[in-house]
């Protein structure tokens, strides 16, 4: 960009928008893009580009990008607005809804929307858009939309209903979420989330979702994740399943009406941009292997999180970053990629051939005490099976969370608990053969409950056997299904011996950057659910992901999208014969064909596992500059090796699981590198991001609000380093404070 004039050249703009220079010239000639000739060369002022991309909007100054260094020749920055409405926090959303443009019911029939993903976010969005009258095409890679990863969520969904009368309110939920996110989320988005949370529960009950109820027939709540109120709604350990089946039923109703066309076993591989706007996708039919063109007036990405960049995680095997990454490469900024949640209580890795990790609900930490032996000699004997954990005397155990955090003990937040487990295991106190496991022990709770029972029943409180029996019954009532699952996987009985647990990758707070309307930096392309970045900052609270997915899909996107689509009512059908579709299809084909033609020798998983190991060891629970730099160079090398040596059997136009996996791993490799860069760039510790250089003397996280109070939004650059843009966060309603659990 020309520094003095702050203008784009045709070449720069073409590169920025990812279109050909010819396209830019065409728009200049038709007058759609305003340009000045300076010394005989076209110069395009920034405001004219903005106007071209967002024709309806008046141009305002905003803080996003305000500190972009315009002097840097290589940094072609571009200002985007976060579109947070003015006015007091509590009124922003209602004011905004009042002011945005609407599309009339008759005109909605003329508009097509593509939704990629059928998890809570995608399914609820598809159903609602179709109810409103849009023609929806929904995509998922599973054989049924009901099998999206959301189905696996266990614990519950938050909502500020205050049914328990314990002082909950929209403000408290808002505050807890901002604080829990360690002050790295956008306040206005979080407030809206808290506002619509109550509607979610009403909507789900009306759909027939069988939430847990008390004996009076009213909805029951549990408390979750270190907050002070009971606001979590649940359906036993299957909350995600019940909510997703509710959204699935709402979709089915629209499929039956002909308003949703469902494409299962389809994988989106490219975004198609026409004249700067998202106008369709290229998807591969995973059964026939054929590439298909799908056109629409807007594209919604609801493809979930990217935890599987670590290979091992609690995510479903198919969860991947491809859809989000493909739009990133076409111009959507990717925000805070390094913000990952590592959940402290998962079943440890048992061997080299392990394919995924299983979560043990957070609720267990209410009654379980976490420990490792104090002496390494005991550790050794345990690993050699010469000692059992129950043989270790009380005084020889290190209840390290209780020791380090006397106030919160075993109930510290997820990030703190995970790091503490890693610290002990790194120091050589891990209790399984890989040295990566700690004990979660229920014995104290069993005795406590047992004594209580004996006392109330008037039985002998000194009869150890009886006490244990009574205590185990209570534990069974509370956690029976989890104990059973644990036993199935590990073949150990957790009533008799402490559970072994270790932290595992669980959720990604980072994701595609979106504005208040949930639109990405590509006009007409939206991102919702775990795929976007907006609500959880640097750490997500338990039971808030389900809330966000459904809030985005049922109550936010269907309205904000109208604002954009209102200018499309006269556009007419988008043709898939446009050259842009052809180009995108060719891109997708070339990529896949490369893998088929490559006569390598190593299977895709070999590379995925290697990537996972780099990510886990160097970008995991704690990070430092040297290791992050190593990670970046190791991932680069691995990527080269991958393209040289990967082996994909079979054919392109056929069912070919290895080919689909190769495409996903290719994207994970690129994301992994950006992830490490982001972690390197963020010289502070906040939430799930812990930089060893930035900690207190006691080893606690040290946030730096002066220098890092921003969202890192990365712009993809073909053949060069990605560029960082900073959206400065403003805190109007919540005061910035540091977290302490001592």
């Amino acid at each position: 960009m020309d520094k003095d004039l702050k203008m784009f050249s045709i070449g720069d703009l073409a590169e920025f928008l990812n279109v050909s220079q010819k396209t830019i010239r065409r728009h200049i000639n038709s007058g759609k893009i305003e340009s000045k000739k300076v010394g005989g060369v076209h110069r395009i002022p920034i405001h004219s580009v903005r106007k071209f991309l967002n024709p309806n909007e008046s141009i305002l100054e905003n803080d996003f990008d305000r500190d972009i260094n315009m002097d840097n020749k290589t940094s072609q920055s571009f200002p985007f607005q976060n579109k947070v409405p003015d006015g007091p926090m509590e009124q922003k959303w209602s004011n905004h809804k009042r002011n945005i443009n609407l599309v009339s019911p008759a005109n909605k029939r003329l508009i097509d929307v593509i939704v990629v993903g059928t998890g809570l976010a995608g399914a609820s969005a598809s159903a609602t858009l179709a109810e409103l009258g849009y023609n929806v095409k929904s995509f998922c890679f599973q054989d049924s939309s009901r099998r999206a990863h959301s189905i696996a969520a266990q614990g519950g969904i938050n909502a500020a209903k205050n049914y328990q009368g314990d002082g909950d309110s929209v403000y408290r939920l808002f505050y807890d979420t901002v604080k829990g996110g360690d002050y790295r989320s956008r306040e206005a988005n979080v407030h809206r989330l808290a506002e619509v949370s109550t509607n979610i529960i009403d909507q789900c009950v009306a759909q027939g979702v069988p939430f847990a109820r008390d004996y009076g027939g009213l909805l029951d709540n549990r408390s979750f994740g270190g907050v002070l109120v009971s606001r979590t709604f649940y359906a036993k350990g299957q909350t995600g399943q019940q909510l997703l089946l509710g959204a699935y039923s709402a979709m089915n109703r629209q499929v039956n009406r002909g308003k949703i066309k469902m494409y299962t076993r389809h994988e989106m591989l490219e975004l198609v941009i026409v004249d700067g706007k998202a106008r369709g996708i290229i998807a591969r039919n995973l059964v026939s292997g054929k590439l298909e063109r799908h056109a629409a007036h807007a594209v919604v990405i609801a493809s979930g999180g990217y935890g599987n960049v670590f290979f091992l995680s609690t995510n479903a095997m198919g969860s991947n970053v491809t859809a989000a990454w493909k739009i990133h490469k076409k111009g959507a900024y990717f925000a805070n990629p390094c913000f990952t949640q590592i959940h402290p209580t998962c079943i440890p890795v048992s061997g080299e051939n392990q394919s995924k990790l299983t979560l043990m609900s957070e609720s267990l930490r209410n009654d379980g005490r976490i420990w490792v032996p104090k002496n390494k000699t005991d550790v050794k004997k345990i690993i050699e099976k010469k000692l059992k954990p129950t043989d270790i005397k009380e005084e020889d155990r290190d209840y390290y969370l209780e020791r380090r955090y006397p106030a919160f003990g075993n109930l510290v937040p997820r990030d703190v608990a995970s790091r503490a487990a890693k610290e002990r295991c790194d120091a050589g106190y891990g209790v399984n053969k890989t040295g990566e496991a700690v004990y979660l022990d229920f014995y104290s709770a069993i005795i406590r409950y047992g004594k209580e029972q004996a006392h109330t029943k008037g039985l002998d409180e000194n009869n150890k056997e009886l006490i244990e029996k009574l205590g185990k019954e209570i534990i069974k009532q509370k956690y029976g299904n989890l104990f059973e699952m644990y036993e199935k996987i590990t073949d150990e009985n957790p009533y008799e011996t402490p559970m072994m647990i270790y932290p595992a990758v669980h959720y990604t707070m980072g994701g595609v950057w979106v504005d208040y309307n949930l639109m990405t930096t590509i006009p007409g392309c939206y991102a919702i659910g775990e795929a976007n970045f907006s609500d959880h900052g640097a750490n997500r609270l338990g039971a808030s992901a389900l809330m966000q997915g459904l809030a985005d899909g049922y109550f936010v996107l269907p309205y904000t999208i109208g604002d954009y689509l209102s200018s499309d009512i006269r556009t007419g059908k988008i043709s898939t014969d446009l050259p842009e579709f052809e180009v995108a299809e060719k891109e997708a084909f070339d990529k896949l064909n490369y893998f088929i033609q490559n006569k390598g020798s190593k299977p895709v998983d070999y590379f995925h596992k290697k990537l996972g190991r780099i990510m886990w060891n160097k970008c995991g629970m704690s990070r430092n500059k040297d290791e992050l730099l190593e990670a970046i160079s190791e991932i680069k090398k691995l990527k080269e090796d991958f393209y040289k040596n990967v082996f994909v059997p079979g054919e392109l136009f056929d069912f070919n699981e290895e080919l689909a996996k190769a495409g996903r791993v290719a994207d994970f490799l690129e994301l992994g590198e950006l992830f490490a860069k982001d972690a390197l760039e963020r010289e502070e510790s906040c939430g799930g991001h812990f930089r060893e250089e930035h900690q207190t003397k006691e080893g606690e996280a040290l946030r730096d609000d002066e220098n890092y109070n921003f969202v890192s939004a990365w712009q993809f650059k073909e053949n060069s380093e990605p560029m960082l843009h900073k959206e400065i966060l403003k805190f109007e309603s919540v005061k910035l404070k540091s977290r302490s659990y001592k």
Partner: protein
Amino acid sequence: MKLNLKIWRQKNNKSKGMIHDYVLDGVEEDMSFLEMLDYLNNKLLNEGKEPVAFDHDCREGICGSCSLFINGVAHGPEKGTTTCQLHMRKFKDGETVYVEPFRAKAFPVIKDLIVDRSSFDRIQQAGAYISVNTSGNTQDANSIPIPKQNADEAFNAATCIGCGACVASCKNSSAMLFTSAKVSQFSLLPQGQVERESRVLNMVNQMDLEGFGACTNTGACEAQCPKGISVKNIARMNREYIMANVKK
């Protein structure tokens, strides 16, 4: 441990399939059944061969993707367990293990062990919903109390994962357990009353159109359901169906 695997391989829906033999050494007790297949596939890939295709995703027993007929039993020998949660310690060294797809007329094979279960989706689309729009102005969730017992029973029916083990286990390939679980859930809830009759008629009609067989009450479906969905749901659906027909 070492296993003699006999696995169904079939290129696609048009070609004929057959059992292939694989001897797999080095299987560990801690592996899940699907990890054992991953391990086999890794070996095949290293030999430059095509891996065995099978459906899976969550590997936590909840998404309903995994299937497999293992030694003639849907989801294998352990009761109340999906294939992804079945572990190799349930097998013996040197054992012969047959692995086949879920078979039914309404579940055509796509490739190897993968079948097309979209007929299940179509049954749901025919009426398994409550017609309520997302207005943001629905009644407050607590305005209609629901007796705990009904809520719990509706929940139990709603925990069906749609895997198709019931169909695969039934000698008539009947989808009654699957269909009735959803009909039951809604008929037990006040919200489901308005469309109660049309729902059961439409879903049963679609079930028949898809080519699922009739129910002869053998109970095989309940016995092999990994989620323990009760055949009482079938009885309830039969009542609902008769009532709806009477009122029609």
